[in-house]
Each structure stands twice: as structure tokens, then as C-alpha cells.
């Protein structure tokens, strides 16, 4: 880890990331949405978020947007995350702890196969 964190360095990182992104031509937009209501946070949503970000960093996956939503009324299923791959319908997952998040990132986000065990059927 470099000791100095300057904005110059960030600009360089940004330009490099931009180049890589253009080379890869990401297949559509990938969205991971984490529920961050009080219920989600109390159930461990921050650890879930940390796990998702950690996966993006270690696997170096480009083009994933990570965002949040509030309480969606399924508090007993928290932590809840939703995954949207391009034009495909949204998939909602419940009881996503840090470990389940790794599995969803690997199997669904990286390889396009939803993780059946954690899907919330509405």
C-alpha cells in the first residue's frame, strides 16, 4: 500500500481504470443494491456492504454500481440485497450475511447464475 494518498495519484488511478474499462466493454450495467434502513443496519447490512466491496476489490471487477435503498418492509429478511444484471429482472436476496454476499457476487454478478437458496420469492 503506497504511503502517500494524493489527488494526483487518484487522477492517475482514474485514468488507468478508465482505459481498462473501455478495453473490457462491460456487458451492460450491473447494479448491487443494499437495503440500509435501520432494520437492515441492525441486521448487519454494513458487513454485507463491506463484503461486496471487498469482492469487487479482490476480484477487480469493473462496471458494478453499488448503491443503497431504505427499508422495503421485509425487515425479517434483512440484510437484503438486490442484483440487477443489464436488462434482466431484478433478483432480491434475503439474509445476506458477509459470506452469502461473497457467494452472490461470485455466482450471480460474475457468472450470471442466481443463488437460489437466498432468493426472496414475492
Amino acid at each position, binding site marked *: 500500500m503506497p504511503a502517500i494518498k494524493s489527488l494526483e495519484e*487518484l487522477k492517475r488511478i*482514474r485514468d488507468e*481504470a478508465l482505459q481498462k474499462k473501455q478495453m473490457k466493454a462491460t456487458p451492460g450495467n450491473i447494479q448491487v443494491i443494499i437495503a440500509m434502513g*435501520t432494520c437492515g443496519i441492525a441486521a448487519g447490512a*454494513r458487513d454485507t456492504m*463491506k463484503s461486496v466491496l471487498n469482492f469487487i476489490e479482490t476480484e477487480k471487477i469493473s462496471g458494478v454500481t453499488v448503491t443503497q435503498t431504505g427499508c422495503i418492509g421485509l425487515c425479517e429478511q434483512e440484510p437484503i440485497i438486490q442484483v440487477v444484471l443489464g436488462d434482466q429482472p431484478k433478483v432480491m436476496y434475503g439474509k445476506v450475511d458477509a459470506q452469502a454476499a461473497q457467494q452472490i457476487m461470485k455466482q450471480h454478478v460474475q457468472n450470471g447464475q442466481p443463488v437460489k437458496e437466498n432468493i426472496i420469492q414475492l
Partner: protein
Amino acid sequence: MREIALHLLDIAENSAAAESQNIRIEVHEDLHRDLLAARVTDDGRGLDPETAQKVQDPFYTTRTTRHVGLGIPLLKLAAEMAEGRFSLKSKPGTGTRVEAIFRHSHIDRMPLGDLSATFLTVLVSHPKMNWTFTYRVTDKAGNSHDFIFENTELKAALGDMSLTEPEVLTFVRGMIEEGIAALTLQPVN
């Protein structure tokens, strides 16, 4: 909730939901005065006096209009259990300030917890918001050290590049984690 940092995440989410543009999260561990102060200040739509009072009541929530539920009463209770106090100051159209103060050495004082994870979470979740994070440690002799993080320059440098691009994420996470760890390592006694 088991950490002050998780409460701060919860309160900051309220602020973000209240159409704020600027949100400040401040934590001060003051061993000189034996206090731990945690504060979230926003310039969002604010609460009228009646609502500001009601949100401190565990049986009140507006759910659809504002995301305030159990979070605030739980934080209030946590502060009061540790010989501290809680205040919520708000003005419609101006913003809200939530402050919880704990006796630092109190046996029932909740641990501060993972402050960097809280900062990174709100930053990633609300990348367009102007965030200011302040973590200050004052030792027993009264000497203070600060970590201050603002994302204005960061946003300008990134342009439309997402914070969740892996290289960018490593950079920003490192910046926050190293800044906080440097203070935590200061000799505090």
C-alpha cells in the same frame, strides 16, 4: 445495534433521505474530559418541533415520508445509559443536528466500532452527497489529533468514474482506513 459507528450510519441514512446536500459526521474521543461525542449534521429538509420531539419516541415512525423509526430512540437510550445525553436540533428547511454524548469510561458505553466501514458505506451509497468526516482524539493531557476527510476534491478528480471501480475503491478505502488507524495508534494515556 452494538456500535456507535452503526448508529452513525443509521442517522446519516436519515440525513441522506432528507434531501440534504451536505452531511457532516463527527466523532470526538476526548480522554481529557472523559467524553465520547458523536454528531451528524445535515442541511436537509428538517423537522418541525412536534416531529422532532416525536422521533425520539420508540412508538413513532412515518416510514413512507421519513425514514425515522427505532434508530433515534435507541441511540438516545444508549447515550443515557452511559451517563451521557442526547440532543436533536432541527429547523424546517435548514437541517438537522443529532448529537449523542457518552461518558467515555462508563462501563455501559457502547464501543465506537468500525468507523471506517461506516464512512466508506455512506460515501459509496451516496456518492453525490458532500460528505465531511471528522475523527478527533484528545489524550488525557489534552492534546488533540484530527482526521478530516472531505469528498469535494475527490468527486472533482473522479468525474463520472464510479467509486466502486476496484482501483478507486482501494484508494479511497485506504485513505479512510489509514487516516483513522493513525489516530487510533496515538498513545492515548
